[in-house]
Every structure is written in structure tokens, then in C-alpha cells.
């Protein structure tokens, strides 16, 4: 972070600098999202703009995370910085610090530190081992073994902790995972090598094998962690963008408070376009958009005294809301809590890695035991038998096998991340690859919630535009957007009546954009023009449907909206199967019913009404515009507005699965060669080092190739 002086106040910069050096920074630290920064010039631009502000003491851009961390002078808020950045042409948003993960990635750092230690120890032990492999004898060999042991044992005690911990957890729960054979191989290699060192029998030691196994696996684990961590932090940032603040009306005036601090009987002001943060009672008539909760595309008019549920969006005029429930008791949170319960069910999905481990571990452990019994029985030499059994376990160590899956998932998750798909769950790719049936929500997922108009003559168009511009209603905004090329007529006395429409005077004659029996109507003097609005599909929706259909997926649309609207859109997009008028609970029921028929369902939805369905589907995706609770429930978040990434994601997932299978075959072939060599007692540490490294590198290269 660059320390920047307040203009004319060099002393302050000095204070900030010393404060930072001591690890304490006075003033508030906060993060701003900068979604559009890309290059060095952006970094310099943002930091220069912020440095010129008196309220900002320090600013440092993180280009990878696309955000800037600023330290404010005491008593200042981010308003000035946000305005300055927006004026300079950088889109900036404040992020909620509590929703962000703590800065710095502790798990990634610890993995890197362990990998660094393992790598250092591996290189030194190998350098020493070369002398032994090339025939050093007696005292020299004993000394080299002791040097190796004194480097390897402490290094292993530090580096291999993640594998031991994970293996312990699995064994305690009575399960088998990949880390059990890994931990066992490391442990056996270290103890038998230590025994050989102390006894100095001239047999092989395997310190370098144990270390290189640990090193390669830690690198694989770090890569996998990094790919998922970036997707997760981007998803957390979406949440952090929604600052949980509300404007409370008190006797003294307005104050900004945390949503969590609202109590029943508080009165809060909601601007047009704002989402209600808590359940409450509207104090005036209003129009609300309930699509997030119910999936109905049409706005609903409510009267004074009607209830507004958390998550509904206020349209048209601002409204004062009397709070009736605290935030944690409100509808939105209750649904979010349901999602958490549903999510735990999915964690039981066992990945390919664990299933492979379940197959692999008994085979290898059985073979090692068999080798031990055979050698003991045939030669009667216990020491030799233990040596062969250990060599079997080490040389068949699941290095390539354990890397086969994480390397592919890391590469594919990273590729999808750059395409704008954030996969949050570790097994999401595998589950996406199994999908054979895709359910799309309609409003907000397949459509953008804006509308298209029939042709209008120039006069009507100019009046319609002038009326539409006077309102924030989605229909008006859609109208205004589709008439953008026209010049608005000069109207007087423009007035919006919530739930009814907009009216005004045009050359003294009344004109209205009004609710009619079959949708919005434009009332001109002597004429009445119906404006049947049809929903606009999201960009790429038709192509996505066509591509998925060609790829052989079963496609269906589920919506809470009416039959005819659903049929209209489905007809245009080419979806044959429609489930219309479905209530939120029934969406989840439908998913379960399909699952009961043996289908693997991918649910794509954005509304709160989709949340339960997203959580119980085999795999789920949500667009970035979805509610927070919905994004949490989904396995992946689509950052791009274009739906084509859905097809791309599924394609990537099946490619990932094919690549994983290739890698598993590579590892199996390697083991098929290595096992007989080891069981027959020909394995040497040099051979183990060579084949282990080469098979690991081969598997990783296969994972990262295009």
C-alpha cells in the first residue's frame, strides 16, 4: 500500500507511515470494488486520484482482486473517494467488510510455506542421496543417512501435517479418502528409513521419496486451493457489494444504520429501486416487484397498510416502511437458513477422488501385505520382508493418483473463472459433468425483465417516451429504453399514480400511460393504443438452448408465472417442456421428482423462489444479479450477462471428467508397471524418485494442456 501525503500536510504522511510500520493503522480501513480496472495505467490512475483527496491517507490497488484498500482519516467516510473515482471514470463501489473474507489468504499461505519447506528439504536430501545411490560405502553412507534423516524428519513433521490431519478426520469418521494411503506411505517411509539409519544395515532409506511425495502433493493442493479461493472471493465480493444498511427515520431526522440494528416499530425510508431489507408494513400505496420471491414478472400494487416482505423491490415512488420483524427473523433470512440446511445434504456427495481412494487403498495395502507374507514365508527373513512391503507402499504411492483430479479441477476452474463462471464447490465440476437435464427459471434467468414494444407512429412514440421517462417502473423503463432514439414530446403536469400509470398534459390535452385490461395502454386524445409488452430474453438465451439441445440435454422451463407468458417465451427460445404456475416449494419438489426418476438435474435460477430448488438439484448455477441467498445456494455464479456460459460450463465439466479419467488411467498404468517390480523386491529409492516425479509431472501436464 502506498503511503500518500495529504496535500500540505507532510507530517500526517509520516504518522501514517510509522503507524503502518508498527502494524497499526489509525483511521478506518475499507475496500472499494473496482470492476473495470485492467492494467498498470488503471493502478496509477486510481492511486493518483485517491492520493489527492484529503480524506484518504493511504490507498493500494489489488489488481488481481480488482479492488482498492484505502485508509481513511478519522471521521471521514468513503463518499468523497467514491465520487472522485467515479468522476475520474473508474466505476467504484463500497464493499461490506464483514462479508469479505479477512484480507490475505491464510490457508494458501500455509500451504505455500509447507511446500517451500518440503521442496527445500527434498532438494538437499536428494543431493546427499545421489552419493549413496552412486555407491558410497560404510561410514560415508551412514553419515549421509544421518544428514538426510536430520533434514527430512523435521521437514516432514511440518510439511505433511495437512495430510495427517485430513487422514485422521477421515479415519475417525470411518471413511477412506486419498489422504489415508498418502499419510500411511509418508509415515512408513519415514519410520523404516529411520530404523535403517539407526541400525545401519546397508538397506535402502526412503527419505527423499517421502519428501518428494509431500512436495508434489502440496503443490497440487495449493494450485487447487488457489483456483477455488479466487472464485470464492469473487463470490464473497458480490455479497459485500450489498451493504446491509438502511435509512432510519427518527424524530431527529434520517440516520444510516446497520440492517441488523433495526427493531420492530422503527420506520425506514426506501428509495425507488431499493430492496426491502426487513419485513414491514407500507405506510403509503406503492408498487413492488415480487419477482425475486415469487417469480411473477408483473409488479404488484399494494395499498397503505399492506405488508412488504424482505427481498421485494420498491418501484415508482419512495415508501416509508414500518418494521415488523427484525432482519434475522425476516422472510429473506428464514429462506437463507433453509438453504443452509439443504446445503449440508450436498456435502455428502463423495467426489471421484474419494471413490478412487476407496478402491485403491485396499488393493495397494492388500498387495503390500501379500508381499510381506510371501517374502517372509519364502525366505524367512523378516527384515527383508518388511523392506519389500514398505517399498511396495512407497513406489505405488498415490502421487500421480492424488494429483490426477486436483490438477484437472484447478485448471478447469481457473479457465471458467476467466470466462466469468465462479465455481465455489470443490465437487461442482464432477456434478456438472453428470448432468443430463437442465431446468431454467424464467424471470431474471432466461429473461432480463425488460420488455419489447410494437411499432408506434412518431407522435405516439414521442408522447410515450416523455411519459415513460417520468417513471421508474420497470415497464416504463423498458418502454423508455426501446424508444431511446426518439425525441420526447414536451409534456406538462407529469404525475405518477402508483399501480396505475403516468399521466400528463400534452398541448393542454390529457395523455396517459395507463394500466389496461390486457397490459399497458397509451391514451392519446381520441386514441387508445395497447402496448403488449413481451419479455426480452437474456443475450445468448436462444443460442444456449439450441446448443444444449444439440448436445442432448433435456431442457425445461420452470416458472411461477402464468401459462401463456411462459409458453410465449418458451416458443421463442425453443424450449418444449414447460412447468408454469409452479410455487416455490413445488420447484424443489419437481427437482426431487426428476431426481427420483434417475435424472441428474442442473438448476439455473436467480430468484429466492428458486433457492430451495437450487439447493436440492444435483448442480446449480445462478446469475450474478440473483439475490445473495440464491447465490449462496448455487454451486456456481455466472458473472457474464450472456447465458452462453452455461453451455460452456457444461462442456468444460465433461471435458474435465474425460481428462480426469485419462489421468487416472495414466496413474493406473504406472502402478501396473511399478507394483510387480516392487513386490518382486527390485525397487530402489533411485527408481522411486525417478518414476514418482515423472508420473506426477506427466499427470499435471496432461491436466493443464488445452
Amino acid at each position: 500500500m502506498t503511503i500518500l501525503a495529504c496535500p500540505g500536510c507532510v507530517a500526517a504522511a509520516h504518522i501514517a507511515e510509522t503507524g503502518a510500520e508498527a502494524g497499526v493503522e489509525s483511521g478506518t480501513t475499507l475496500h472499494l470494488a473496482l470492476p473495470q480496472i485492467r492494467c498498470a495505467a488503471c493502478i496509477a490512475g486510481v492511486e493518483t486520484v485517491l492520493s489527492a483527496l484529503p480524506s484518504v491517507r493511504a490507498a493500494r490497488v489489488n489488481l488481481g482482486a480488482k479492488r482498492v484498500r484505502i485508509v481513511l482519516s478519522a471521521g471521514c467516510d468513503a463518499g468523497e473517494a467514491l465520487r472522485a473515482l467515479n468522476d475520474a471514470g473508474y466505476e467504484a463501489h463500497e464493499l461490506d467488510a464483514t462479508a469479505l473474507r479477512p484480507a490475505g489468504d491464510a490457508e494458501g499461505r500455509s500451504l505455500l510455506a509447507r511446500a517451500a519447506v518440503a521442496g527445500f528439504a527434498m532438494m538437499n536430501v536428494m543431493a546427499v542421496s545421489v552419493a549413496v545411490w552412486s555407491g558410497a560405502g560404510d561410514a560415508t553412507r551412514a553419515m549421509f543417512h544421518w544428514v538426510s534423516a536430520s533434514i527430512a524428519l523435521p521437514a516432514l513433521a511440518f510439511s505433511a501435517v495437512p495430510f495427517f490431519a485430513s487422514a485422521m478426520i477421515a479415519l475417525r469418521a470411518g471413511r477412506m479418502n486419498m489422504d489415508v494411503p498418502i499419510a500411511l506411505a509418508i509415515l512408513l517411509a519415514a519410520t523404516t528409513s529411520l530404523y535403517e539409519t539407526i541400525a545401519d544395515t546397508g538397506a535402502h532409506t526412503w527419505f527423499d521419496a517421502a519428501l518428494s511425495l509431500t512436495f508434489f502433493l502440496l503443490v497440487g493442493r495449493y494450485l487447487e486451493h488457489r483456483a477455488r479461493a479466487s472464485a470464492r472471493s469473487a463470490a464473497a465480493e458480490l455479497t459485500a457489494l450489498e451493504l446491509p444498511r438502511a435509512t432510519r427515520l427518527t424524530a431527529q431526522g434520517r440516520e444510516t444504520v446497520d440492517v441488523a440494528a433495526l427493531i420492530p416499530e422503527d420506520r425506514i425510508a426506501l428509495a425507488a429501486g431499493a430492496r426491502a431489507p426487513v419485513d414491514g408494513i407500507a405506510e403509503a400505496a406503492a408498487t413492488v416487484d415480487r419477482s425475486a420471491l415469487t417469480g411473477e414478472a408483473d409488479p404488484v400494487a399494494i395499498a397503505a397498510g399492506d405488508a412488504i416482505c424482505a427481498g421485494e423491490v420498491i418501484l415508482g415512488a419512495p415508501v416509508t416502511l414500518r418494521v415488523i420483524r427484525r432482519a434475522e427473523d425476516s422472510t429473506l433470512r428464514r429462506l437463507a437458513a433453509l438453504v443452509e440446511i439443504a446445503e449440508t445434504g450436498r456435502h455428502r456427495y463423495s467426489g471421484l477422488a474419494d471413490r478412487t481412494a476407496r478402491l485403491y487403498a485396499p488393493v495397494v495395502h492388500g498387495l503390500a501385505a501379500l508381499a510381506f507374507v510371501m517374502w517372509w514365508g519364502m525366505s524367512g527373513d523378516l527384515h527383508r520382508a518388511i523392506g519389500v512391503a514398505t517399498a511396495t507402499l512407497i513406489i505405488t504411492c498415490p502421487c500421480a493418483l492424488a494429483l490426477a483430479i486436483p490438477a484437472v479441477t484447478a485448471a478447469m476452474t481457473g479457465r471458467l473463472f476467466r470466462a466469468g463462471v465462479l465455481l465455489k464447490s470443490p465437487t461442482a465440476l464432477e456434478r456438472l459433468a453428470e448432468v443430463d437435464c437442465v431446468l431454467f427459471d424464467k424471470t431474471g434467468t432466461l429473461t432480463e425483465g425488460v420488455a419489447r414494444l410494437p411499432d408506434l407512429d412518431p407522435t405516439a412514440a414521442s408522447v410515450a417516451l416523455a411519459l415513460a421517462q417520468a417513471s421508474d417502473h420497470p415497464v416504463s423503463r423498458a418502454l423508455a429504453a426501446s424508444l431511446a432514439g426518439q425525441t420526447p414530446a414536451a409534456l406538462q403536469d407529469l404525475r405518477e399514480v402508483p399501480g396505475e400509470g403516468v399521466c400528463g398534459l400534452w398541448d393542454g390535452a390529457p395523455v396517459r400511460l395507463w394500466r389496461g385490461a390486457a397490459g399497458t395502454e397509451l391514451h392519446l386524445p381520441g386514441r387508445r393504443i395497447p402496448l403488449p409488452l413481451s419479455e426480452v430474453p437474456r443475450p445468448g438465451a436462444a443460442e444456449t438452448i439450441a446448443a444444449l439441445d444439440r448436445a442432448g440435454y433435456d431442457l425445461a422451463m420452470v416458472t411461477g408465472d402464468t401459462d401463456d407468458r411462459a409458453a410465449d417465451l418458451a416458443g421463442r427460445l425453443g424450449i418444449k417442456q414447460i412447468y408454469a404456475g409452479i410455487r416455490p416449494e413445488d420447484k424443489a419438489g419437481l427437482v426431487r421428482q426428476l431426481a427420483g426418476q434417475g435424472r441428474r438435474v442442473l438448476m439455473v435460477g436467480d430468484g429466492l423462489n428458486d433457492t430451495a430448488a437450487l439447493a436440492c438439484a444435483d448442480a446449480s448455477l445462478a446469475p450474478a444479479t440473483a439475490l445473495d441467498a440464491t447465490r449462496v445456494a448455487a454451486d456456481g455464479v455466472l458473472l457474464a450477462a450472456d447465458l452462453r456460459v452455461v453451455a460452456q460450463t457444461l462442456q468444460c465439466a465433461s471435458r474435465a471428467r474425460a481428462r480426469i479419467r485419462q489421468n487416472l488411467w495414466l496413474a493406473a498404468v504406472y502402478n501396473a508397471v511399478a507394483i510387480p517390480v516392487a513386490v518382486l523386491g527390485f525397487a530402489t529409492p533411485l527408481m522411486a524418485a525417478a518414476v514418482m516425479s515423472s508420473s506426477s509431472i506427466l499427470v499435471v501436464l496432461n491436466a493443464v494442456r488445452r
Partner: protein
Amino acid sequence: MNILVVLIPVSICLGAAGLAACLWTLRHGQYDDLEGDAARILLDETDPTAPRSDPAGTRSAPRP
């Protein structure tokens, strides 16, 4: 062969120094924004309006 008594500790110490340096960079968050650091070398440091390089330790997140 007695030279080994000197050479082995020397080689291990050199390696350990490298490891210590690596852990130091890790502790100071130098891998937190690889993309940004790659871009920052293009910034003209002599330009008085451009951000200066960091005083020690300020790159990392505030430590408790």
C-alpha cells in the same frame, strides 16, 4: 572426504537462507496480487505523481 564436513553444512545453510527468504516474502504478502505486481513494474517510479514504492511491511494486510 573430510572436506564434506565443511561442504555439506555450507550447502544446507545456503539452501536454508533461500528458504528463509522465501518464507519472509510469503509472510509479507508478496504473493497476494501477482497480477498487480506484474503490472506495477510498468509504472514510472520517477514520475512524482505516480505511487512510490512501499515502505517495509505496508504491502501486507494489517497484522493483529
